[in-house]
């Protein structure tokens, strides 16, 4: 185990009580326990309160634009397969603005981790509904309540054979640390959605609201995350009971394996020109 203080980042601008704080703590704990040093990991984030996550850590960081964490993270993996890559996004970021990239990443199966900070609301823009807001959720922009049901992104991930699909809760730090560790150790695309209360703009889905509903799948007798249909049921379960833990797991070939050049390591070490006479040979 590495000392936790090596991950200390710049001072945070999150609201006191924000669900991001226990997530940051659990993530550092997971890195320390797995002995992943700051210079061995790249965090790619987007825009939203989750986008600031890597700044409050010590690590390689690419804080890109809204919705585009996954293509940047995938590009980094395709340039350097030795780099541990984690994409950090919010529910608006990943499920709204960047939804198409989630679908494509599920198909590609790059060896990276996606953490979705799901607070069921837009925090940075001060309180509009997100793709995961519950039907009827009232906001300044939706005074009559959100008229349609939320996106069940984890069910989508199971349906598309996501290689590792799980849910954590910011209010259960110890359990969350374990999930972070599993996600970081998984070979393939791991999707970890974390229920992350927003204390400023979501007065419905509070710590208390989640605590009354969440339960750990590993305590469910006989639950098998490799059983696709069972996993699908659990991925769609939402409301009175909300499952936490690994929902689905499936071994799949990696995206990186489809690019033979990556077997020789990072592209930066393979940079070379090509002889012009050989390039021209096809055109005589």
């Amino acid at each position, binding site marked *: 185990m590495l000392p936790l203080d090596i991950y200390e980042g710049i001072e945070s601008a999150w609201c006191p009580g924000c669900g991001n704080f226990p997530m940051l703590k659990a993530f550092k704990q997971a890195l320390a326990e797995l002995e992943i040093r700051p210079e061995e990991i790249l965090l790619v984030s987007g825009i939203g309160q989750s986008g600031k996550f890597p*700044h409050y850590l010590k*690590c390689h960081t690419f804080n890109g*634009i809204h919705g585009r964490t*996954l293509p940047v993270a*995938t*590009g980094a993996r*395709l340039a350097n397969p030795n780099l541990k890559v984690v994409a950090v996004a919010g529910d608006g970021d990943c499920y709204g603005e960047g939804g198409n*990239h989630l679908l494509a990443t599920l198909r590609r199966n790059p060896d990276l981790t996606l953490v979705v900070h799901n607070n069921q609301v837009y925090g940075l823009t001060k309180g509009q509904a997100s793709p995961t807001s519950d039907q009827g959720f009232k906001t300044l922009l939706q005074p009559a309540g959100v008229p349609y049901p939320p996106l069940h992104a984890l069910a989508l991930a199971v349906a598309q054979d996501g290689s590792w699909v799980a849910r954590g809760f910011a209010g259960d730090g110890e359990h969350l640390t374990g999930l972070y560790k599993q996600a970081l150790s998984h070979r393939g695309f791991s999707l970890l959605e974390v229920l992350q209360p927003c204390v400023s703009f979501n007065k419905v889905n509070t710590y208390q609201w989640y605590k009354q509903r969440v339960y750990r799948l590993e305590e469910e007798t006989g639950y098998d995350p490799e059983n696709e249909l069972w996993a699908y049921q659990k991925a769609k379960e939402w409301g009175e009971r909300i499952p936490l833990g690994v929902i689905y797991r499936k071994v799949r070939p990696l995206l990186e394996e489809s690019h033979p050049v990556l077997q020789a390591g990072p592209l930066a070490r393979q940079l070379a020109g090509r002889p012009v006479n050989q*390039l021209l040979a096809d055109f005589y």
Partner: protein
Amino acid sequence: MADDLNILIGGAAGQGVHAITGPLAKALVRQGAHVLVVQDFQSRIRGGHLFNKIRLADRPLMSSREGVDLLVALNQETVTLHQEELSPNGILIYDASQVKELPGGRPSVALAHDDLLPGTQAGEIAVNAGACGALLGCLKVPLAGLLALLQETFASKGAEVVEWNTKAATRGYELAGSQNSPFSLAYLTPPAQPRLLISGHEALALGALAAGLNFISGYPMTPWSAVLNAVAQRAGRWGVVVEQAEDEIAAINLAIGASFAGARAMTGTSGGGFCLMTEALGLAAMTETPLVIVEAMRPGPSTGLPTRTEQGDLNFVLYAGQGDSPRAVLAPGTPAQGFALAAKAFHLAEHYQLPVFLLTDQYFGDTQFTQAAGDFPEVQVGPTPTLEPTPGPYERYALTPEGISPRRLPGFGSDLVVADSDEHTPDGHLTEDLKVRVEMHDKRLRKLKGLGQEMSGLTAAGPPEAPLTLACWGSSLGPVAEAVARLNDSGTPARLVHLSELWPFPRGPVTAALGGTQKLVLVEMNATGQLNRLLRQETGREANHLVLKYDGTPFTPEYVLRGLEGQV
């Protein structure tokens, strides 16, 4: 008089226009002709009318021209649409099963399956190979080269297919021989140094590979796809990661992620796709990530004319994105320039850590030109990111006099690389310190000074003291250069000035090149004269006359000269 002939091969999509053009053009190049092949096609896979125009001469060609000397019609529509273009001694070669109404008084060669390959089930091979043979017969060029090419091309399809092609080409050659054609290229001999037949986009892809390209991502779109395909076909051999993206937004973000992590990365698209890329263009500029972007233009706005050509996106690439962000824009006019500028684009992108555009179009991309191997000199891999750790604390965006900060890659040693699309401090973390904001913005824009000194790319021709100058950019080089040559040949002194490096604008070289001009004509494939606007903005000078074209088809020298009527 020097020979300069035009062949037009037309038919419905899927009929064999390309099957005839490919072996024929290559056989003629091998035999010593200079060949230029222009494609004209509609946005459909089957049906419609499409044609290829092959111009051939005994001297270098950089442009197509108007007129047809040998018309190959695979359907009636080709005859109807193009018979008026036939020169007085032109010859028609046609598929007898499709063409029933012939123009009167024209020498013609009828190609019929049962005459070419009696008793076989050769299908369209008969007329396609027959047409190739007939064309060579009309030109009195020996058949052996074509037969060798047909053998090369079809060997993988079996001995019977090769035999059908050989027989049909030979019979077509005999049929044409009886026509007493007025044309003859019999004197051509294979050049001592073999020449290449290569398209603009193929040459651009090769230039990128020569400069070390090892990552390309893109979403298919005409005409950009030709670049992506050309790299993909060679990716296995040269070790390139090729990723087809789910959309153009992903394409550019994939390339940015790869470049950030150390790949020599390129993406590309055409106008509509670039609309989707603009947000990430700013991301590359803000995070100072090297990136080469091909923007292969086609007529807009919106879907426009998907398979046609235009130079309508110059304003767009110059100004795309929010805020002031540095970039470079290069626009090749020939395959050789496409090759060299692709390599230069990577050098500039890596050294100045910013996005560099290669601005092309359908005409440049799809047109095949005859070039010499010597037109493609070896290129350097150029600057590469350091993989060694920095002594002392590392700051990704350290303030420097040139605005260029030392670039390091994540995952190589102890330096932590922090990049942010927000305004950021020198160590890469987001900030709202407004003093830092101004320092960082100045730093990024300061790079333009050094970058500007790297810009030249002027091609000039004609007498320097000529009072008339025709200026153009990018793919218009060939037709405008030929128009200028014809003006000088006919006693009107004129000068050509072509720009292939457009931003930062090479103010000094352009001002000097236009210094003695009394009358300046700008020739552009767009409706508003976008280079003229840039010229006025940068030099205070503007054109006295514009020759513009925006009907989707490329310039010809004749069109340019007609545009000068009343001016000279």
